[in-house]
């Protein structure tokens, strides 16, 4: 039987040791933090490196989380300030083991890694299972991440699969992930982009403690939510309360990779007729990237030709940070997350920003058109004042994205 949250809290000692004093710019009677920056492109000059905090549920040995990590490690225009981990696809400690060893294999032990939230804000495995029984799945696949029955408890760490082979010698930082995020953003105002590839628990904690960092982050890129394929995604419905808090915050720019756009490209797709990306990378990349693709993509496909490859969700977050020109259309929308426990727990809700623009206002329209195009202002009050404003990626240049991905995977390993 796996450890429950209650037992875990009772048995875990004071492992997370640091509790250092943070400067608090919002101290009484000092002026409030800098005013909101106008939404728009991230203010960093072309050619300059982009400072990034990489917040991830880095579930090993392979998959969208690890591939997002590899892209960020390989990109020349990214300055990775630190990796912060959060329980999601796996328990945080297991993710930590994979992340540290991956950095060793990639020769990047200079990058600090921070332990973050081990549990979602409110959601629990037991309640999730009850909801599944009562209402069925959000999606037709049974993915529950760290709450999967096959996973042990939060404190268990299983041996790492090849090519990781053993646990790392490298150790994590003592500081909590949320405190690192606060410190790094305050020290580099207007410069630190946040890659949020897992549940948004760490980010929610950071802005609960230090709301002053929100206007100082030029862009947050988030994966989750959706319209057509699913109305939610794991990273959101694993911790809907944190997602609501983060999506509602007044970030200068918050970009969202929805399930809909992520489903357009899968890891098993072809880069040229008859040539899959994974085969191209396994044959041309350097070790350890070639080994990872060979062991965990090419060989499983040989054993099971009907293998289903996952959508490229985290890879698209990485692409938005490394080369946002990959995305050819985006749209500002209001978003909120349903936190009412029930069948819609974790669903995303969207509202248009242009609801006041009636396309044919002032023009004479036919009776037939009038029946179809109703002026929404007659009945619609607009989005609720609490909803967040986000930049939703709508279209992607498939060829350019695949080329970026394969190029990053096959170029020489970018060591420290």
């Amino acid at each position, binding site marked *: 039987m796996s450890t429950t949250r209650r037992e875990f809290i009772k048995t875990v000692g004071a492992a997370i040791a640091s509790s250092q004093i943070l400067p608090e710019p919002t101290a009484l009677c000092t002026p409030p933090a800098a005013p909101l920056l106008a939404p728009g492109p991230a203010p960093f000059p072309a050619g300059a490196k982009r400072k990034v905090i990489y917040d991830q549920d880095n579930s090993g040995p392979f998959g969208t989380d690890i591939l997002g990590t590899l892209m960020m490690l390989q990109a020349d225009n990214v300055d990775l300030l630190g990796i912060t981990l959060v329980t999601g696809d796996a328990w945080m400690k297991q993710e930590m083991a994979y992340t540290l060893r991956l950095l060793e294999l990639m020769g990047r032990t200079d990058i600090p890694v921070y332990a973050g939230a081990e*549990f979602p804000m409110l959601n629990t495995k037991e309640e999730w299972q009850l909801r599944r029984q009562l209402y069925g799945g959000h999606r037709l696949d049974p993915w529950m991440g760290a709450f999967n029955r096959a996973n042990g408890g939060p404190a268990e760490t299983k041996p790492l699969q090849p090519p990781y082979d053993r646990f790392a010698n490298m150790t994590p930082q003592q500081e909590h992930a949320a405190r690192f995020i606060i410190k790094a953003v305050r020290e580099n105002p207007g410069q630190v982009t946040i890659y949020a590839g897992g549940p948004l628990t760490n980010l929610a904690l950071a802005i609960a403690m230090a709301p002053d960092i929100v206007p100082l982050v030029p862009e947050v890129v988030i994966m989750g939510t959706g319209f057509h394929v699913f109305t939610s995604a794991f990273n959101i419905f694993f911790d809907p309360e944190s997602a609501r808090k983060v999506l509602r915050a007044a970030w200068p720019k918050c970009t969202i990779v929805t399930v809909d756009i992520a489903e357009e490209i899968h890891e098993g797709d072809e880069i040229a007729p008859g040539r899959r990306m994974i085969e191209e990378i396994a044959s041309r990349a350097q070790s350890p990237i070639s080994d990872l693709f060979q062991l965990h993509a090419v060989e499983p496909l040989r054993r099971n030709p009907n293998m289903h490859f996952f959508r490229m969700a985290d890879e698209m977050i990485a692409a938005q940070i490394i080369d946002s020109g990959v995305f050819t259309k985006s749209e500002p929308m209001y978003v909120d997350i349903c936190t009412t426990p029930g069948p819609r727990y974790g669903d995303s809700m969207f509202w248009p920003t242009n609801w006041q623009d009636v396309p044919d206002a002032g023009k004479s329209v036919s009776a037939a058109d009038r029946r179809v195009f109703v002026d929404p202002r007659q009945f619609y009050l607009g989005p609720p004042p609490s909803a967040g404003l986000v930049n939703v990626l709508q279209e992607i240049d498939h060829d350019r994205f695949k080329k970026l991905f394969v190029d990053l995977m096959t170029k020489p390993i970018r060591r420290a």
Partner: protein
Amino acid sequence: MQIPSDLLAHSAMFSPAPQTSSAPDSKKKLIYDQDHRGPLSTDTVATLMLLQADNIDLLGICTVSCDMWAKQETAYALRLLEIMGRPEIPVFIGAQEPLLNTKAEAQMRYQMFGSRSLGNEGYLGCFAKDAPGRDEVTPLPPPYNRFAQIKAQPEPAADFIIRTIRANPNEVTMYCGGPMTNLAIAVMLAPDIVPITKEVIFMGGGIHHSTSSVNVYFDAEAAKVGFRAPWPKFTLVTTDLAEQVHMQDDGKVDDIVERAHSPIADLFRQYEQKPQRANPQRHSFRMPDEMMAAHAIDPSIFTGYDDMYIDIVTHNDGHYGDTSFWDANWKDEGGELSWQNSPSIKAGRVQVLNGIDKKRFRELFTDLMTRPINRSKS
């Protein structure tokens, strides 16, 4: 027959009822987390009680938005410490907003669903329509008169809570007199503090008078985190209990104004006696925070507790923040209650105080308010 001399020091039967002691190491270490509404309220009066009690070691005051915004509360708390001669007690600004709840939603819920149950609990604190903005700090009325010279600490309240509990394992009592936002952030950042906290005392929720109160429905998600954590001991003052005593009862206000020292006498004269005389029909508030303070100072004033499970409704509707209770001693014995199921799988376990000795409470309260001001020794 020789009586061992060290026993003489323990002649407890001759000492007054409150379990007080002047030995510093026997004092109860307490973190005071409060939505500290000024100039005088149940919050402020509880602060006065804890400042006046000999057996309380007040490690720090953490503010949290609810009755007022945290910055305004901090201004009141700092100046109160100055006029009470206790400037050495550190003050930490806590969460300025709830984890998720917003003013806009609180007002929309009120419009759609109205007040809560029998208690007409519709109070929104700093989410009220005409309340000032989050960063506004308005001047302090007499006897505060001006802003304090002392300043709040730069450390966030949640970090102070984590650091202090880790440095004093099994010794720190958490007094949570406002929403549990600071405590929830601390628990999420450092779950290891839960088993080493001596006790959490909280006021909110209820069964008969109302199913919730502002400290819960202002931040229902934080309450859920706080209640569900497996604390060694969690003591709850419900609205049902708090409604048993009101400030106007028994002539205690006149008693305090007559006998108390400044600034306590000034505060009660200005903000309790005067309004009561101007309007004899005035409904004075129940005494929830005073009861929490009384429990910290002398728990024997309470007649007992019911062992219960508790959980919080976080549905974003008219029940947002309602409390749900289960009897922790329920057993399936096939009797007339056999239709019951076991408690919620994730509910927290709490000791719900179920009665108070009103006479002793009044004695303790007026004694603390009227004794000489407990200034710092230096």
